């Protein structure tokens, strides 16, 4: 029995001095005195508790496998050839293997977020104590941790409470990882269910991390007017020493900012971030700069902009140290998860570390104490900056042309480029002195460097591209709204009316990474398209940065053009990756706020509610990571459809609905118990969109839900039809599947649609109180 978990319950105790009845003692742990919500059926679900729900969804949206690789080499029986129905030495077929990889990817992602949160929580408890209160939005938020409450039944009130929540998550991740061992789970659908399970846990892991950091670091709290912060390489003042933090865990950045402020040098420094650390840094410190997504790492370093590079965790190029060495920029690794081979100097005197880095005696150090990281980074930056004279490894224009001339047009680069960019053609022009094609590539290139690796001529292709785009690069001076965190209860209440009255057609969440097929502009265009149409547009992570990187004809960024609230036409940045939890959280809160459904340990009922009622769609246009897979899986289990960009097909499978199979679209009307066919709403749970245009049309269709009021449905259809005509050139061919009563027909399209309905022999149906769970059928009370 550890003190942490001391819990005594005495039903009755008689002693000489007193009689005690129903006494409950809890020490160092919350008794949840204010949490009187009844416990639902599934608190802390095990791997199989929600399996039936998963199978309900997976039967409606069958996995469609697109194996990226049909070999397995996970154990020494392999490699096993799994093509054409063949099974591996352990008996596994390609479907189970593909879904096993999905479950594994989701587990890695979930482990990543949860370990990040674990580190945050440990660190913050150590510094601020277990009883530090959680506060994510003051008076405007009643349900502080909707996912945690829903899944675990715990209502966390202090940092210490988060411990128990994480312990649950960690156990589940271990269970799922175990299932992926050779000779364990045999069935593809069961692997899918396990992926859903670990995805759900991932959302808890994210929620824990974000509410901990919001509470302690006093980030914007559910604030629609969170400050606008600078975004882009051009926003960095290059005359000052620059500290560049890469990764996702804000703790070392906080150490740097605190130290700089303490020494009153923060104004004479630039502290900039790349990837989600940048978001979280600016939630803490509005003078911080967001440089951009992971794909900006090479360009920033090669341009010599960073005087010190600080690495925390996740999505950091593993060759950053080599790249930094080329520009003489010292590196500080600050996370146990990414030690970069450096010597651990955590316990060394600061002066010695600073000297070693400044003199160049060592290229980098590992420091696991964030306060020490802060002091070392600031002192080194101040000293190194004047000496380094901004060593720049970008070639001159002449060198670009000279390098281009060595190109043999072998096309290896283009073949290896994940985006199939026409590098050889750009180099051909460059060799003749015309850099315009290279400059165009700057806009689209995701900075992966694969072209360089492939080039037999050893041309530093990415550097040539950056040089050609240098002017544009230094003009990247835009704005991002600092991550606002959760959506407040009041905001959710305020949109109830407009949604049922059809004024808000849906909610679109643009999340995830920057593996874009053609630059970040697509994200901006999609966000703007839907915000202009009065959808609610939520953003996070690299997508939130991409959206802020462009301006409209009036010169305004998307965050200036649209309000930052959860409202019609609102464009809200929730924050970093872990802040994605607030998007799922908002969906969960809808059920609690409007229908007063209990959340506590009541997963299945709430997911059923969200799946059938809430017109929300997630888009991860540039998803690349295992974390993105885990986030997606968490949404799938809630029944929220997710779309990914073209690279998303490498996640190996889609979850597709079949609109040609009418019986797949039956729901139960909870009012009558009768089966009602509601058509393919939503049509898919997970699918890939190949082009921006296809994606926009898909989003408009995927916000359709069985419960839509006729006003809501008419509005959704107006946009779907309009977008389909605009981008595909024709009327969609499935309109008749979405019209339940004549009132659903958008009034401006009446005669046109009536004709279609006649052609399809359409029949009127009812609008049900939809559910997939027979137990939700209500009995008329007498």
């Amino acid at each position, binding site marked *: 029995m550890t003190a942490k978990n001391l819990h005594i319950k005495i039903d009755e*105790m008689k*002693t000489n001095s*007193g009689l*005690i*009845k*129903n*006494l*409950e*003692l809890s*020490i*160092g742990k919350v*008794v949840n*005195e*204010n949490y009187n919500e009844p416990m639902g059926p599934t608190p802390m679900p095990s791997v199989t508790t929600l399996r039936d729900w998963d199978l309900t969804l997976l039967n409606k949206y069958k996995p469609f496998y697109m194996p990226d690789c049909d070999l397995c080499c996970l154990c020494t029986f392999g490699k096993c050839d799994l093509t054409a129905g063949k099974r591996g030495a352990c008996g596994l077929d390609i479907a189970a293997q593909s879904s096993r990889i999905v479950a594994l990817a989701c587990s890695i992602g979930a482990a990543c977020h949860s370990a990040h949160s674990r580190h945050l929580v440990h660190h913050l408890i150590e510094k601020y104590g277990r009883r530090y209160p959680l506060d994510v939005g003051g*008076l*405007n938020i*009643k349900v502080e941790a909707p996912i945690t409450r829903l899944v675990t039944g715990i209502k966390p009130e202090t940092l210490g409470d988060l411990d128990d929540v994480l312990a649950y998550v960690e156990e589940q991740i271990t269970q799922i990882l175990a299932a992926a061992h050779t000779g364990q789970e045999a069935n593809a659908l069961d692997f899918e269910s396990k992926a859903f399970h670990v995805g759900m846990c991932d959302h808890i892991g994210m929620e824990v991390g974000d509410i901990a950091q919001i509470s302690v670091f006093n980030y914007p709290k559910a604030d629609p007017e969170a400050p606008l912060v600078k975004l882009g390489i051009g926003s960095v003042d290059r005359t000052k020493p620059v500290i560049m933090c890469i990764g996702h865990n804000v703790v070392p950045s906080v150490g740097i900012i605190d130290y700089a402020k303490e020494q009153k040098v923060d104004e004479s420094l630039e502290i900039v971030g790349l990837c989600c650390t940048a978001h979280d840094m600016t939630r803490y410190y509005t003078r911080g700069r967001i440089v951009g997504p992971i794909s900006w790492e090479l360009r920033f370093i090669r341009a010599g902009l960073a005087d010190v590079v600080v690495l925390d965790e996740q999505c950091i190029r593993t060759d950053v140290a080599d790249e930094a060495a080329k520009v003489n920029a010292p590196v500080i690794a600050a996370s146990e998860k990414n030690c970069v081979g450096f010597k651990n100097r955590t316990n060394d005197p600061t002066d010695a570390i600073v000297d070693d880095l400044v003199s160049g005696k060592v290229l980098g150090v590992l420091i696991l104490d964030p306060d020490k990281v802060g002091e070392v980074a600031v002192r080194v930056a101040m000293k190194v900056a004047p000496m380094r004279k901004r060593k720049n490894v970008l070639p001159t224009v002449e060198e670009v042309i000279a390098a281009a001339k060595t190109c043999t047009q072998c096309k290896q680069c283009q073949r290896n480029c994940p985006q199939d960019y026409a590098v050889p053609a750009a180099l051909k022009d460059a060799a003749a002195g015309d850099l315009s094609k290279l400059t165009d590539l700057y806009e689209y290139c995701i900075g992966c460097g694969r072209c360089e690796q492939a080039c037999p001529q050893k041309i530093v292709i990415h550097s040539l591209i950056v040089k050609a785009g240098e002017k544009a690069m230094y003009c990247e001076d835009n704005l991002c709204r600092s991550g606002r965190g959760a959506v*407040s*209860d*009041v905001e959710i*209440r*305020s949109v*109830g*009316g407009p*949604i*049922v*009255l059809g004024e808000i057609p849906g909610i679109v969440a643009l999340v995830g990474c920057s593996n874009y097929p053609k630059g970040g502009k697509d994200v901006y265009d999609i966000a703007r398209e839907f915000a*202009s*149409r*009065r959808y609610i547009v939520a953003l996070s992570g690299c997508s939130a940065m991409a959206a802020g990187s462009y301006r409209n004809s009036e010169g305004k960024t998307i965050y200036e053009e649209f309000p930052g609230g959860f409202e*019609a036409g609102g464009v809200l940045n929730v924050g970093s990756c872990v802040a994605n939890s607030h998007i799922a959280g908002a969906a969960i809160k*809808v059920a609690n*706020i*409007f*229908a*007063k459904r209990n959340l506590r340990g009541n997963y299945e009922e709430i997911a059923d509610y969200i799946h059938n*009622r809430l017109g929300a769609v997630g888009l991860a246009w540039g998803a690349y990571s295992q974390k993105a897979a885990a986030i997606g899986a968490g949404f799938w289990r809630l029944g929220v459809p997710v779309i990914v960009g073209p690279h998303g097909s490498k996640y190996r499978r889609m979850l597709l609905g079949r609109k040609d199979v009418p019986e797949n679209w039956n729901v139960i009307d909870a*009012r009558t118990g009768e089966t009602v066919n509601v058509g393919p709403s939503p049509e898919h749970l997970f699918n890939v969109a190949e082009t921006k245009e296809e994606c926009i049309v898909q989003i408009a269709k995927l916000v359709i839900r069985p*419960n*839509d*009021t*006729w006003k*809501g449905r*008419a*509005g959704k259809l*107006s*946009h779907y039809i*309009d977008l389909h005509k605009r981008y595909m050139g024709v009327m969609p061919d499935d309109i008749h599947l979405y019209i339940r009563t004549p*009132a659903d027909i958008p*009034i*401006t*399209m*009446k*005669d*046109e649609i009536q004709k279609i309905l006649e052609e399809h022999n359409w029949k009127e149906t009812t*609008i049900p*109180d939809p559910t997939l769970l027979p137990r939700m059928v209500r*009995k008329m*009370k*007498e």
Partner: protein
Amino acid sequence: MSMFKDIPVEVGVIFEGERIRRNDMQVELGGPKVDQKFEIAKVKPMDQIEDGKVVIVGPDLKDLKEGGEYPLGILIEAAGAQLDPGLEGVIERRLHGYLNYIEGFMHLNQRYDIQIRLGKKSFQKGLNTFEIIGKVLYRLFKNELPIIEKLQITFITDISKIGSLYTDALASYEARDAKARGLKDNEVPEFYGCVLCQSFAPSHVCVITPQRYSNCGAISWHDGKASASIDPKGPIFAIPRGDVINEEKGEFSGVNEAAKKRSMGEVTKVWLYTAFDHPHTSCGCFEAVTFYIPEVDGFGIVHRTFKGVTVNGLPFSTLADSTAGGRQIDGFHGMSLEYMRSSKFFAADGGWNRVVWVPKEVKEKVKDFIPKDIIGKIATEDDAKGIDDLKTFLKEKNHPIVAKWTTEEAPATEAETEATPVMTASTLPISAGGFKIILTDAKIYASKVVIKKDESKTEKR
């Protein structure tokens, strides 16, 4: 879109959010720089209307100078066997949506306050005459409101003619409002029910009467009537009022039946004019919450956008949570701001005489509807931050509720209080059954603690 094939620009819901900036506008009609502007709908006898006619009095769009601002009156005249003047407001309010459906045509505000902009691009595409605007309006009205059998539309830009029409319009709005507010629940045969919110709150039913606006504030009795007549099977439907069961509380047999049927028996009895016992249910999107404050036996009201905590220490979000979800909660009531303007506003509970605390923003909004003798006696957040302040304030101002306190002694007892620790100690040794436990920083909660002292018992609850 075939319905608007002959219209030079697109027409669709998707243009609703479109904004036209000054630089992009061909002309502005109405707006802050123009004194006389209006839009009005009138229900007329059948024989006075020529169906489909569009009349333009004064210069047409193509005759107006680019970049200028001009007066405009829009007169919609409708006739139909089932139409009555009570629906004029409903017809008129559709103009906002319909005009905004037109690509490159922006409409803001309503009544005598309209502001319209025509975009240059649409003008160049051929949207250069009111004739086209009239055609679009005609088709939309006839399609969406089949109870309109005949419709005639007039646009007035002639400065010499608009003046008298403008004065007429003002008088009509005035008369219409007075009539709408004067309409009594017991003068109409039907109320209307709305279940749009069942899409998210499956057991909620709004009962909309002339004297009780919908919770969301978006649907009036007249709106309900129009919707129900267009689509009687739709989510907004007629509720025959039935017998008056309890006039004071506002209980009607028809309402009870409808509520029972539509809530699947969850709600069987609704009292429309009280927050107690069987109050109207609350879905989730209500504009304000009324909450009973037992310590002073009065009501507090808080609206959705109120920041901070109310006089009982709870913020809107918590109070809203106590009442939402389509349930009847004694002493809590989600409602629209408009309901506060009704003479039946909690009539059974004493109406405004029972209200003790409202945010000043709300007070300002509805001040004309609060009886003069009570308005100064209702506290706002400036007057009272807590219950003690409130008591002092009410006594000082001699709020009518104070008289009740003295007759009934202490105000109603508090509801079950939340658990408070019965014992708090920084260190607390317990010895029992031969071993000793020392608790540090312990709080002990118990549903019941009985402490024996000699022979006499003390119970603490």
